[in-house]
């Protein structure tokens, strides 16, 4: 067994291990924490609504990937170290559970690792760091509850405030909807804001910086609530688009053009384009029901940022599902009933939501569809592979069976042909038109089916099969030999998927088709892009938005966004730190992990609390820098301190933050001449996803902090024994 001596922060106890392994140079530098810090550093620019994408290049294969999220970053990093492994595990766990909050987690891991390392430098005992930090986080999570709002209240407020053209400092949120619908007001407003707007020449912005938000904001709703005719024409250049009728060219590449952020309310210049589009939306699709959008559409928007396309898709999904929910009394928003289909080669403006199941098939298969026309099809669902060799899970093939042929005359058929004929025979005799298969499909059978006008689609997700089972009454089978008439469903329809302008798409190798049934709950978000490397980003981001809404509804409440929660944490920590230190022996015993820790804990409390605060302070300042709210971290810190001071002066920090949030003034740069006209775009955050990201980040840092050695087991140990680096290890 090799024991890697990791750096030790406290020297007293280590003397019982072999002293020769100490690295004096690194005294009080914990290697695991340093590894965490450096890994997390790579994700700094992924924080916040404006992310800078990264190219990750594999030097051995020269392949590169474009990534724009913490999960994808972690997937592409070398994580051979133990700390890296646990970091990966933590990020994946957050992703699996929430699909959001991973960059926050990654960032805080880095910030808190640095802060804890500094505590170690100051000789703070490990146990004091652990107990004060975890108690501190607990206390903050309790405190920020006052910044939670119920989803219901948020819905109400959003629906009434979103229709205001101007956000004045009025205390009430009840400017009537008619002002919006008054075209004169709108036009005036448009003139006013158009004047200072710089119109970017075409192509000027594509290479401005590493920020790859090329075209996140250029899409107006193709499918809004209900059906709306397309309003956007792709203007050739993918980073530019004309919004029909408005005459305003918007560009999206400028950092200042953040249209919507969960973190910072729009202000200054950045509000123009978003307002423009919002009004477009209202005037076209949503104006029919300006105050009754069911709220969820606006809630989805308030929880999301950046990509307008995805946001509109989400709104369509919400509208569709809510309408359905009202009719059937089912749940409001069900993510199990949403799937995605990525179409490469179409501009992003073609993204839309289609009821039913949209997927890609080969052109040969697509030819079958024209025989179907509009007639209702008999559908079969299969929950395994459709191949001759496939056997259900857990079936072990006999290896010692020899088959002998008794009648050589029958040998003309190869065994495979016999199977093919039998299967086709079954399908034909039951008059099956459409087969959805969970796994793979045998190529020969596929051809045979095409010849017999049977459409077979493989690799269909289980949720999709479920949706079809529910609506068609089909009962999935594993083998075709099991098939009975009662297993078949009916009423399915298949058509070529058409883009919103009515054009059927021929994307070369694969053709999108849409399978639908009257009353099916399944929705497919068709995601389109012309840039192959962006497809993954678009899909990831879409799911992030979907999950944010899902979690908000699950939690039943949301946090005020825009940095409000973090700011309150900071002010709360200030308060905790200012509490008079208790005499080391008497009180506060029960709060801490061990009774004998109480004394040492109170001694180091303020240092450790400062370390905890550093995480959020850096988080806010990096966000402000990433979103160009501050020119430098110094400026950002000044602004944060300013708010903290005002919050403290005000007596009740939460009341102050709430007030500033309502005014939309939190972290506004103040220097903008347009602040008066800023629309209050309220932004909200997920409650559980956020606090869980904090907790997971801190848990990880504390877990690594408390680790003082690695024990290497297995065959690697012997390699180490013989390697030249063996002096770093000790062997048992």
């Amino acid at each position, binding site marked *: 067994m090799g024991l890697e001596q990791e750096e030790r922060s406290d020297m007293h106890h280590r003397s019982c291990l072999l002293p020769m392994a100490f690295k004096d140079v690194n005294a009080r530098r914990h290697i695991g924490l340093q590894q965490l810090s450096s890994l997390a550093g790579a994700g700094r620019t992924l924080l916040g609504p404006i992310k800078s994408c990264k190219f990750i290049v594999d030097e051995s294969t020269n392949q590169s990937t474009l990534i724009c999220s913490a999960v994808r970053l972690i997937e592409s990093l070398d994580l051979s170290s133990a700390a890296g492994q646990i970091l990966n595990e933590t990020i994946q766990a957050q992703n699996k559970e929430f699909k959001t909050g991973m960059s926050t987690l990654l960032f805080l891991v880095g910030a808190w690792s640095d802060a804890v390392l500094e505590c170690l430098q100051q000789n703070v005992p490990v146990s004091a760091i652990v107990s004060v930090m975890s108690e501190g986080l607990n206390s903050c999570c309790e405190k920020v509850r006052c910044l939670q709002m119920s989803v219901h209240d948020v819905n109400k407020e959003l629906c009434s405030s979103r229709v205001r053209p101007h956000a004045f400092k009025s205390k009430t949120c009840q400017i009537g909807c008619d002002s919006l619908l008054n075209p004169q007001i709108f036009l005036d407003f448009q003139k006013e804001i158009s004047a200072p707007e710089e119109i970017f020449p075409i192509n000027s912005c594509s290479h401005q910086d590493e920020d790859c938000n090329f075209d996140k904001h250029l899409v107006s709703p193709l499918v809004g609530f209900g059906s709306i005719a397309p309003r956007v024409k792709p203007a050739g250049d993918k980073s530019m688009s004309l919004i029909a009728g408005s005459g305003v060219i918007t560009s999206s590449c400028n950092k200042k053009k953040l249209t919507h952020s969960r973190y910072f309310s729009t202000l200054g210049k950045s509000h123009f384009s978003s307002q423009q589009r919002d009004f477009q939306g209202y005037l076209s699709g949503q104006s029919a029901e300006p105050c009754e959008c069911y709220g969820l559409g606006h809630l989805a928007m308030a929880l999301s940022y950046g990509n307008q396309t995805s946001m509109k898709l989400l709104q369509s999904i919400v509208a569709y599902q809510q309408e359905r929910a009202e009719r059937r009394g089912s749940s409001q928003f069900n993510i199990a009933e949403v799937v995605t289909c990525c179409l490469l080669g179409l501009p992003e403006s073609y993204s839309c939501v289609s009821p039913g199941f949209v997927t890609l098939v080969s052109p040969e298969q697509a030819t079958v569809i024209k025989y179907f026309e509009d007639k209702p099809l008999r559908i079969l669902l299969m929950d395994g592979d459709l191949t001759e060799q496939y056997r259900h899970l857990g079936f072990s093939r006999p290896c010692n*069976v020899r088959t002998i042929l008794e009648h050589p005359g029958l040998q003309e058929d190869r065994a495979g042909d016999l199977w093919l004929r039998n299967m086709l025979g079954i399908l034909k005799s039951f008059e099956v038109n459409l087969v959805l298969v969970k796994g793979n499909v045998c190529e020969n059978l596929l051809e045979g089916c095409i010849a017999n006008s049977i459409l077979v689609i493989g690799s269909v997700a289980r949720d999709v099969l479920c949706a079809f089972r529910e609506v068609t009454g089909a009962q999935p089978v594993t083998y075709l030999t099991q098939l009975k008439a009662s297993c078949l469903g009916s009423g399915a329809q298949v058509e070529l998927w058409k883009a919103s302008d009515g054009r059927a798409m021929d994307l070369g190798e694969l053709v999108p088709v849409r399978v639908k049934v009257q009353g099916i709950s399944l929705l497919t978000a068709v995601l389109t892009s012309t840039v192959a490397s962006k497809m993954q980003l678009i899909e990831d981001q879409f799911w992030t938005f979907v999950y944010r809404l899902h979690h908000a509804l699950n939690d039943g409440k949301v946090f005020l966004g825009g940095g409000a929660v973090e700011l309150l944490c900071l002010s709360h920590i200030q308060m905790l730190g200012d509490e008079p230190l208790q005499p080391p022996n008497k009180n506060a015993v029960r709060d801490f992990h061990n009774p004998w820790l109480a004394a040492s804990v109170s001694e180091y409390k303020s240092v450790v609390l400062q370390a905890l605060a550093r995480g959020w302070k850096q988080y806010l300042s990096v966000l402000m820098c990433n979103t160009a709210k501050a020119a430098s971290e110094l400026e950002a810190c000044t602004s944060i301190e300013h708010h903290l001071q005002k919050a403290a002066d005000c007596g009740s920090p939460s009341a102050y933050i709430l007030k500033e949030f309502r005014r939309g003034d939190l972290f506004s740069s103040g220097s903008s001449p347009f602040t008066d006209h800023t629309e209050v775009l309220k932004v909200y955050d997920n409650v559980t996803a956020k606090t869980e990201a904090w907790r997971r980040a801190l848990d990880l840092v504390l877990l690594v902090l408390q680790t003082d050695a690695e024990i290497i087991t297995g065959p690697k140990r012997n390699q180490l024994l013989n390697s030249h680096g063996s002096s770093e290890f000790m062997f048992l």
Partner: protein
Amino acid sequence: MARLEAKKPPLFIGEPLTKDTVSQSLSLLSGILKSCYGPAGRLKQLHNGGGGCVCTTSQSSALFSCLSVSHPVLRVLTASVQNHISRFSDCGLFTAILCCNLIEHFKSLDVASCTVIKISNHILSLCMDYLKSEACACRVAVDFSSIETLLCLVRSILKSKPACMLNKPEVDHLTALILKAFMFTVPCHVETNAVLGKCVIVPVKGRRVVDSTVLPGLLIEAPEIQLAKPITVKRTCSDMIKTALFCMSMSGDLCNSEGGVITVPQRICLEMSELNQLLNIGKQLVDAEVGLVVCQKVIHPSLKQYLQENQVMAVDRAGLSLMEPLSRMTGSNPIASIHSLSPSCYGSLKDVRIENFASKHFVHLIPNDPVVCSLILCNRNETAWDELKRACETAEHVLQLTIKEPLALLGGGCMETHLASYIRHKTCNLSTSSFKDMDCSRTQYQLVADGFCRSLESVACSLSHDGGETLTDMVYGHCWFVPSGFPSVSNWSDLVSKCGCGINGSAENLNWRLLQGRFGSPIILGCPIDPPVKVADFLALDCFAAKCSGLQVAVETANLILDLSCVIEDQN
């Protein structure tokens, strides 16, 4: 012609304990174990060094299962500690650390090892007599009619595993759950032979700890259940669900694995004939009005389809570990072959439901008498979940041991220091005849006894990991901790707040002394007495049976190792 190779002669190593490599390895091992000990213990990352999964732990069960030690002396030690862990789950580190301490202390004595062994065995018997006597002041009786002491016992176990990453509310939540789960396993109607039921841990990783919960009955994960048509399960006239339990594979594959070739003509399809046999069983089950079929392994899809069409719910892939509790809970005999189907095999259940928990689908089997329960255990990440699972299993085991012997020992180092002061007190009043029996002088006895007590006290000192001092008081003999950074001349009563186990406060001057004082033998006062208050809210308690066994194993193993005079290694 066969060639014979001469056998290598065995390697003979005399006096293994005096060798440098052995003592270095021993002190390294002891250092690793000490650094893991207690609620503030440091964690170890166990991994294969090649990107495999990382286990972060401070628990003896995980550490010892992957420590591969090369030297025979160390192997003796790890083997006996592992044996202790497999029998008691708890107090593994205590055992191992005490054993290392004893070897270290006894080795440095200038006393013949056979004498040391005799004396330490005598001291061990003094300890055991004391711990088992009513007069013992470091144990508390566990009252099963109130939950306070039980909660303390479980809480102490959870708190001493820092790699579980639990905060205080989470510890409280889980403590209550573990106790609740244990209560489920105690049968309501006790006959002459009461057998405890079982608590099965169901993993839900990635969730918050507070999402954990306990359900009566068993949960079987069934990912495909959402694809199946919902059915109303057939019930008997007494509104029960007749249950058949299969431990054979029902997947329809050939079950012979003895080798040899089966020759079949092409017109016969073995798969079909197997399936027909299965369907025949299905028909018998339907005729017998069975409502639920649970199979340890896989059920053929066609059989499942047949059963479902006849309102029989089929659940497969239950797994070996669930078979015993399933059989216990339903009262059915697992059916091992298609020929052993008989009406006496069937059992019954109160209800069957489909439960969804965190995107996982389960079939929930609800029994009449819930002696079997499921603990749905959540923790945020893999490594913390694994650690928590081990901790929960330990807690469950400790509760089982405690119900047999309703006693607990004071934890937080207090039992060790108290026992050490008791031995110090006891041995200075020993009669001369006892020395004669042991063939030793009083001085020799005193030396060994001092080593023994220091070894015990040194275990208590291992609880503190951030420097600082460990004290003991001269009244109760409990253990007290002082943070680092205070000069040792300070008035101790200003610095200590509570003793390690939490039973004593520092209200009066208890005459503290440093535990690891190098100079001067401690002044022996009277026998340590019972603390004034027996019940406090937050006591650190240890399992009585586990700790007593740990003490015995440690002393006996140390004696065995001291007795080793040579190691003979077969080099072939």
